[in-house]
């Protein structure tokens, strides 16, 4: 099958398989896809926009639903002390997964590995924060703005007031040190 959505769902299953724990949550899936598109320019075709919980596109959950319906991934709900989460696991062999990922996975496997390597150990809250930092930075970059870390952190804190200023600056500094910011890199 060659249509884009089929290849996207192959990539989703690959991300689950490559996650350090062998599974990923829904927040992780959403933010990995965002990072792939924003930081690695992988042409996934999603249209992310910002919510208080970070960049989001409902099409990612649609793809997840299709991947689950086709048996490529399995999703379980897990109860935590406060609230709940999801565990998404690849449910097919590596060979089948690659078949479904098609050219998209073949071409961008390294990008997927890179995203898992960089962000695979972050929890959901930190993924929400770092993806919001990247989104805010890219938005400024598109408007030809140049931001200081303090200004970037102020904008992010306005969206996510439940994080402390120090937390936001710490994550922003970390992203800048890895050269992942564009509007904030020169100041």
């Amino acid at each position, binding site marked *: *099958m060659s*249509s884009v*959505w*089929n290849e996207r769902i192959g990539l989703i299953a690959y991300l689950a398989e490559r996650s350090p724990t062998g599974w990923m949550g*829904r*927040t992780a899936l959403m933010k990995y896809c965002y990072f792939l*598109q924003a930081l690695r*320019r992988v*042409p996934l*075709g*999603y*249209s*992310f*926009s*910002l*919510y*208080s*919980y*970070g960049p989001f596109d*409902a*099409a*990612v*959950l*649609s*793809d*997840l*639903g*299709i991947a*689950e*319906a*086709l*048996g490529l991934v399995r*999703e379980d*709900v897990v*109860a*935590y002390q*406060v*609230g*709940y*989460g*999801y565990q998404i696991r690849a449910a097919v062999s590596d060979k089948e997964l690659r078949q479904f990922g098609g050219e998209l996975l073949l071409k961008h496997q390294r990008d997927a590995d890179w995203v898992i390597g960089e962000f695979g150990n972050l*929890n*959901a*809250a*930190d993924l*929400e924060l770092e993806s*919001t930092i990247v*989104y*805010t930075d890219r*938005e400024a970059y598109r408007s030809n703005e140049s931001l200081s870390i303090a200004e970037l952190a102020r*904008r*992010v804190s*306005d*969206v*996510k*007031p*439940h*994080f402390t200023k120090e937390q936001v600056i710490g994550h922003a500094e970390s992203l800048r040190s890895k050269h992942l910011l564009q509007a904030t890199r020169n100041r």
Partner: protein
Amino acid sequence: MHTRFEHSLGVMHTATLLYDAIRQNSREVLESELAYNEDGLKRDRQLVRLAALLHDVGHGPFSHAAEELLPTRDDDTRYKHEDYSAAIVRTKLRSAIEDHPLSPNYDFKAEDVASFLEGSAKAKQTLFWRDLIDGQMDADRMDYLLRDSYHAGVQYGRFDLQRVIHTMQAIPGRDGGAPRLGIGEGGFHGAEALVLARYFMFTQVYFHKTRVACDVHLRGTLKELLPGGIFPKPSDADLDQYLTWDDWRVLGLLSDGKGGEHGQRLTSRDLFRRIYHTPEVSTLQDLDCLRKIRDELGDLVAAEEPASKSWYKTGTPDIPVVSERKEIAPLSKHSSVLANLKANNQVQVYAKPENAERARNKVNEILRKI
């Protein structure tokens, strides 16, 4: 027939009811996690109302049919109608918002409404309310399900709107995550009915074979009519051009015989015919069968429309439900019906009417062999 204006008024009304219910049910969460005070809540209520009213103002002719013909940005992502809505609010509607006699009562500008609509960091903590306009239980879908049902003469989109509204809440974020919208346990059957209403409306109305064929022809017509086959960008220079493209202009051009083969098929109602479709929840084998049919039919296939291509998103919703003991679980944990509802990944295959019989016979032959 109903208009997008009528729908927009409905979205504004429903969003207001939802906002007021959440404000009443979740005061503590709004204050502690989003730093709201009374003035902030009063300001954002008006902002959300305006955003709800204007959320669709950027739609092109025939709405979602036109979305595939929106241009792409430098980073290859496609503009969405929300980007046009935001651009229109910033320019054409700026004065209407900022110079309104009541405007000084609320501390916001047209830019704030635009930032909210497009999902920009500039919308600050107001982004929390975006789920009321574009989320899993938003005022948009609550209105369109009921309104489309009424006007289409079906009952599939009905659910208990009042029950859903009265049980909506802001739910604290888990482990440092952002707070989200959810529903009290007493309203979970209302939310369940809302999800099922979407499912039924999609399968019975929005993804109906003839409606989908019309979308194919509308897309083809617009591609033929637009210079370069693509809409102008939502930039200052091109926005006026974009705004000249409305339903009436397209209908006029169609009536003048423009729009190529697709335009002609629309005006003479000689639509593509569906010759094959996979099950609503297709398996890998079903898709393999589809591939064989597609390969064998070759040029007889005039269009192939997957449900995933639709503007409607088929993923399993993640709606948090709060019990009386303040325990939070997803709706699917409460509803065995929804726990078993799978994403629709149906694909519909079309042929030209003059080829339909030949194509169907060939499909039957292929299926007999499989």
